[in-house]
C-alpha cells in the first residue's frame, strides 16, 4: 500500500513540475482590450463569466497530437475597440465520421467592419475510433462572446486536399445565445451554417423535475440531483447533441449545457411517447440522438 502511495506521489510530483496555473483574478489583467475596457465595468459579471469560463472550445480528439494555435485580437491594439461581449455564440463543427488524416480548421469572428474579433486554428491527426476501422469521430465547437451587431464567421477546413471555406453572416443582439452549426462539406461559400437560438435548441427538453435546474452550473446541478436521489448525464453541450445510451432510467436527469450552464433538464421518460403509445423501435424517446453535419464530405 505504501509502495503504491509513494509511486503515485512520485508520478504526480513529476507531472506537476513545470506546470504553473494562474490565479483567475490575476488572469484578468491579460485579457484582450476589447473585453476589458472601462466601459465594460458595468457589465462586469458578464465579462468575468466570458473571460473565465465562456471562451471555450471543444475539439474532438485527446490523443496528444493536437497543435493548437489561439489568438484573440485586441490585446495588441489591433482589435476593434469598445466592443462588448453582448451575446454568446457557440460554433459547432459537428459530430461526423471522417477518414483518418490530418484536419486543420480555422475560425474567425468578424465584426461589421470586417475586423477580426477572435480567431482560432488547430490541427488534429485523427486516429481510427474503436470499432470503426478507418474512421474517426470528430466533435468540436467553441463558445465565443461577441458584441451585438451584424457579424460573420469565417471558417476554413483543410483535410487532405484543397481548403473548403465559407462565411456565415449572423446577427447578434444583446443577450442573445446563438448556435452556429457548421456544414463545411458543402461547396457553398456562404450560408454554410445553421443558425439557431439556444432557446430553440433546448425547447421542449425540460420536464417538470428539470425546471429547477435551469441556470445552474453542471456541478450545482449534480449536487442538487444527488440530494434528490437522482443521477445526471450531459446529453447536449453548446449546441451539440451527444451520443447517449438508449436505456431508460427514471431516476436519471438529462442535462443540456450552454456556456457551462444548464439550459434544459429532463428525466428519462419525461416527454417521451404520448401515454398509451409505445416508443417505436427505430426512434428515440426520452433520449437524445445525434445530429451529424458532415465534415469534409461532398
Amino acid at each position, binding site marked *: 500500500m505504501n509502495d503504491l502511495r509513494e509511486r*503515485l506521489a512520485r*508520478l504526480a*510530483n513529476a*507531472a506537476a513540475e513545470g506546470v504553473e496555473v494562474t490565479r*483567475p483574478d490575476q488572469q484578468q489583467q491579460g485579457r484582450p482590450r476589447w473585453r476589458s475596457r472601462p466601459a465594460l465595468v458595468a457589465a462586469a459579471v458578464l465579462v468575468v463569466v466570458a473571460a473565465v469560463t465562456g471562451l471555450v472550445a471543444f475539439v474532438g480528439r485527446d490523443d*496528444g497530437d493536437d497543435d493548437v494555435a*489561439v489568438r484573440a485580437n485586441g490585446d495588441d491594439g489591433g482589435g476593434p475597440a469598445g466592443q462588448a461581449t453582448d451575446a454568446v455564440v457557440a460554433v459547432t463543427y459537428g459530430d461526423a465520421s471522417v477518414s483518418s488524416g490530418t484536419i486543420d480548421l480555422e475560425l474567425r469572428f468578424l465584426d461589421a467592419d470586417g475586423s477580426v474579433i477572435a480567431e482560432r486554428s488547430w490541427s488534429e491527426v485523427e486516429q481510427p475510433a474503436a470499432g470503426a476501422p478507418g474512421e474517426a469521430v470528430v466533435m468540436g465547437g*467553441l463558445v*465565443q462572446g461577441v458584441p451585438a451587431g451584424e457579424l460573420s464567421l469565417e471558417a476554413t477546413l483543410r483535410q487532405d486536399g484543397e481548403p473548403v471555406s465559407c462565411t456565415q453572416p449572423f446577427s447578434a443582439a444583446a443577450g442573445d445565445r446563438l448556435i452556429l452549426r457548421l456544414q463545411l462539406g458543402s461547396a457553398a461559400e456562404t450560408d454554410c451554417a445553421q443558425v439557431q437560438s439556444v432557446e430553440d435548441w433546448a425547447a421542449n427538453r425540460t420536464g417538470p423535475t428539470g425546471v429547477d435546474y435551469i441556470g445552474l452550473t453542471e456541478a450545482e446541478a*449534480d449536487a442538487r440531483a444527488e440530494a434528490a436521489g437522482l443521477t445526471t448525464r450531459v446529453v447536449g453541450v453548446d449546441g451539440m447533441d451527444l451520443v447517449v445510451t438508449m436505456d431508460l432510467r427514471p431516476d436519471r436527469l438529462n442535462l443540456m449545457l450552454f456556456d457551462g450552464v444548464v439550459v434544459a433538464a429532463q428525466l428519462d421518460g419525461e416527454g417521451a411517447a404520448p401515454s398509451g403509445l409505445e416508443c417505436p423501435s427505430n426512434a428515440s424517446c426520452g433520449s437524445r440522438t445525434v445530429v451529424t453535419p458532415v465534415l469534409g464530405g461532398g
Partner: protein
Amino acid sequence: MEFAEFFEQTAPRLVRLCFLTTLDREAAADAAQEALSRAWRDWPRIGSDSSDPTAWTTTVALNLCRNRWRRLASQARLVPRAYSIDRRSDELPDIDLQRALRRLPTRQREAVVLHYWADLGVDACASAMGVTPGAVKQHLSRARQRLAAELGEPDLELEVESP
C-alpha cells in the same frame, strides 16, 4: 479564507489530482485551471465559512477530467492559456504505473487516486465522485485486483481505510 490563500493551498494539489486521473499533463492543467476559475467565480458562495471550497473544487475538477468534452474544451480557448507547461518535463517516471492506471476504468482510477494518493476516506471519496460509499469500495476492490495484475504484484494488498 481569502481566495488567494485557497489558491496557493489548492492549485498544486489539484494539478496533481487531475494528472493522476487523466494521465495527461495538459488536460490536468486545463481542468485545474478551469476548476479554480469556477471557484473564483463562485467564491462569495463557496468561500463562506459554512462551505468546503476544497471539496467543491475537487468535485468540479473531477467532473471536468471525467467528461471528455469538458476536458477537451479548454484545449482550444480563444484567450491565451492561463497556465504554462514546461515541455522539458515531458519524461515522466514509472511507465508501468502510468500504463496500469491508464488501463483502469475512469471511476476505478478516480477511487484509487482519491483514496490512496489524496488520502480521502471512503465517504469523502464517495462525496467527491458523486457515488455511494459502497460503490467506492467496489471500485477500489476491482482496481486493486487489476493493479495487482497489471503491475505483476499478486501480493499487492491495499487496505481500504474506513471513512
